[in-house]
């Protein structure tokens, strides 16, 4: 009951005209930087930090929250329209979203992403408001062995989902895992597979790989076929709005994505990528039309987009309750708190309750504003696809390279991008799925660190994974998920034989 009163007070803070304006500026800038690959929300918040020094704490933190949510949303727009994920969390959205756009259904794809983000953020913000303190107690108990169990589940489900044949999927995954090994090893500080190139010491940037494989590989592929079969511009079929069927296929995916996204986002090392991959897998399994996956299934956009935004709200749980930033943007927001002598942490909810609930309330408002800002833009965005293909793909090449250079101005980065582009082209040409490579790069280092930290803590005893019930259960789930398809296949053959 207390929480509701505090929330109402929070709304009275957030609804002040000045704070509404800050929220509006925040979501506007956030959407814009989310659209551009390279200029992420973290950099934007860092740039704006000195500007907001003169504002009151409430106003500036409200604006940062707007940028954060806006950035999460903007990243999906380019993923859907141009197959160029602006952020690593939008990689999954590109899979089905871009297929939908190229089938002339870009409007519904953008709309389900916008509304799904809205629904997820709304539910997750409510969860943040009421569950943050108890949830964080569970989250810090999540030990390296538990993370390893979670990674195993992610690996098994994802590699089973994406490959057209398991061997091709695993080959692509192995490529990603190999890239993931590059750079300084976090646990020993030693360089691995860097070939003496200092720029490789930090490993391969996920967005560079994703943009190279998806956008550049796609552009080269289209160019290679263009000579034989000139493509006409993508037609916009039917309404740009969602049909009744779209709605009925989307709403469950939104809710399931939220349920996956929020708790994983709240884990100190959860992130936004794992829930999007898991959500995609779940939707593919549960879909009434699984055959549409790979050629533009709306659930494949709705679920991951909801998971993405729910995990963004989730990362605020450790930030506010522990002072623990789990993403670069959250780290900059932490600095924003500190410049007003406010230290997020266990005492924040008691010492600065007004500010916390003001932030929660403004997250609601930012959310509504995002929907208002983005739905009318859908029609405008979709027109982008009417650009003749050579122009469109030429633009994508420029856009992708500029984004990469903006994020990290170095020749090595650009060479990597080009190399990944060629690899992406070859993978398309020989029918290897590109998504598992990105999964390998994201999850590989996480799994590597979790495994070795566990073994370091158990002094090398592998039984540590089975001694803790939580990790034992997750490893069991992963094992079942790996074996079950073969068993079922065997069973059905067996039954078939009996007939």
């Amino acid at each position: 009951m207390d929480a509701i009163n505090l929330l109402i007070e929070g709304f009275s803070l957030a609804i002040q005209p000045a704070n509404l304006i800050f929220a509006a500026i925040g979501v506007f800038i956030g959407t814009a930087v989310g659209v551009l690959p390279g200029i992420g929300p973290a950099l934007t918040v860092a740039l704006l930090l000195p500007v907001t020094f003169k504002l009151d704490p409430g106003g500036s933190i409200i604006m940062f929250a707007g940028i954060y949510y806006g950035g999460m949303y903007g990243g999906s727009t380019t993923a859907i329209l141009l197959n160029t994920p602006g952020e690593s969390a939008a990689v999954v959205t590109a899979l089905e979203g871009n297929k939908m756009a190229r089938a002339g259904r870009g409007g519904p794809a953008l709309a389900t992403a916008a509304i799904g983000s809205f629904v997820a953020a709304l539910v997750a913000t409510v969860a943040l408001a009421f569950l943050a303190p108890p949830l964080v107690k569970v989250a810090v108990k999540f030990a390296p062995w538990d993370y390893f169990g979670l990674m195993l589940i992610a690996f098994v489900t994802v590699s089973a989902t994406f490959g057209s044949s398991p061997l091709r999927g695993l080959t692509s995954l192995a490529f990603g895992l190999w890239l993931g090994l590059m750079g300084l090893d976090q646990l020993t500080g030693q360089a691995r597979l860097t070939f003496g190139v200092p720029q490789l010491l930090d490993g391969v940037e996920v967005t560079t790989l994703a943009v190279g494989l998806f956008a550049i590989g796609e552009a080269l592929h289209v160019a290679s076929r263009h000579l034989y079969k000139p493509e006409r511009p993508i037609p916009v079929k039917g309404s740009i709005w969602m049909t009744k069927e779209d709605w009925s296929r989307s709403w469950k995916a939104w809710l399931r994505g939220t349920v996956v996204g929020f708790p994983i986002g709240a884990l100190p090392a959860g992130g936004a990528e794992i829930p999007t991959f898991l959500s995609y897998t779940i939707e593919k399994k549960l879909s009434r039309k699984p055959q549409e996956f790979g050629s533009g299934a709306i659930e494949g956009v709705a679920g991951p987009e909801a998971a993405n935004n729910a995990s963004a709200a989730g990362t605020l749980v450790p930030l506010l309750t522990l002072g623990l930033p789990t993403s670069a943007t959250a780290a900059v927001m932490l600095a924003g708190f500190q410049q007003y002598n406010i230290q997020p942490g266990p005492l924040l909810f008691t010492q600065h309750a007004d500010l916390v609930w003001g932030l929660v309330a403004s997250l609601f408002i930012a959310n509504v504003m995002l929907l208002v800002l983005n739905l009318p833009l859908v029609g405008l965005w979709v027109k982008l696809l009417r650009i003749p293909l050579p122009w469109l793909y030429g633009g994508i090449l420029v856009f992708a390279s500029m984004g990469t250079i903006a994020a990290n101005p170095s020749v090595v980065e650009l060479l990597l991008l080009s190399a990944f582009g060629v690899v992406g082209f070859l993978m398309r040409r020989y029918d290897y799925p590109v998504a598992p490579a990105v999964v390998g790069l994201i999850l590989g280092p996480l799994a590597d660190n979790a495994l070795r930290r566990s073994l370091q803590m158990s002094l090398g005893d592998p039984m540590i994974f089975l001694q803790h019930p939580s990790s034992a259960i997750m490893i069991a789930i992963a094992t079942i998920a790996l074996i079950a398809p073969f068993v079922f296949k065997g069973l059905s053959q067996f039954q078939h034989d009996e007939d």
Partner: protein
Amino acid sequence: MRQFLKTAVCLAALAGTAFYPGVSTANDLELTITAPAGAGGGWDSAARSLQEAMMATGQAKSVQVVNVPGAGGTVGLAQFVGSAKGAADQLLVAGITLVGASISNNSPVDLTQVTPLARLTGDPLVVVVPKDSPIQTIDDLLATIKKDVATAIWVGGSAGGADHILAALITKAAGADPSKINYVAYSGGGEALAAMLGGQATAGVSGYGEWEGQIKSGDLRALAISYPEPIEGIEAKPLKAQGLDIELVNWRGIFAPPGVEGEDLDALKAAVDKTVKSQQWKDIVKARGWTDYYAPSDEFNGFIASETERVRAILTSIGLAQ
């Protein structure tokens, strides 16, 4: 959309300058500060705070911050040494982590090759145990380490960084072999904090500020700080006051490129010194929870040399450097 972004960024930049009315034109330096790390980290916030203070005090006409992340700062340092040579409008923010990273990455460049202008801040590290731990004092911790160095699990920031160095120094002081230390590295104090709160470690090391909330709320028990003297507002006593001859400060400083000499160098020194002595800078240091650790150029120069040798010796003893 891109056009819009440009406008937005311009507006933001305009707003940035508009907030500093009455900037005097006493100094017309146009500076670029390289932060050899990504946005949001310690060096980035030091660079941006210095930018803010230099513009607010009128010690520079314009200040830009450039992030060159990578490999504990060595990528940014290499670029700075290579391309900014002799440029009197280029500055670099760096600290003890970069000293360690240059050594353990076998980098061809290190901080002895750039021109120290001033040491700015120095934050104490803190040694903590979980609240349920039987370890009550630093002596208890030393005894635990001496009994079995391998089962005493440390958590802290990246391998070879200041946290790791302090853990190694304490292990050595306990009479154990520092090369046998069981140090579980996390990407930063935040992730390591979760491991501490989850009770997965024996002891942890981090910057005091990062764990202050948990220390004050009683979730973590602070045994000691690594600063040489007691600090106002911090209850934990220095290691030195508890009979261990260990001091380690997570310092940050500002540097000019190699080859900047004479009047150019004097102008930069003067601008930095005046900024650091201003009320604006003191306010920022306080707001950020940093500890002032100012040393002028000459003193800082000698400090860099001795610190480099000391860090090399420790890293060699834990096997991270040859």
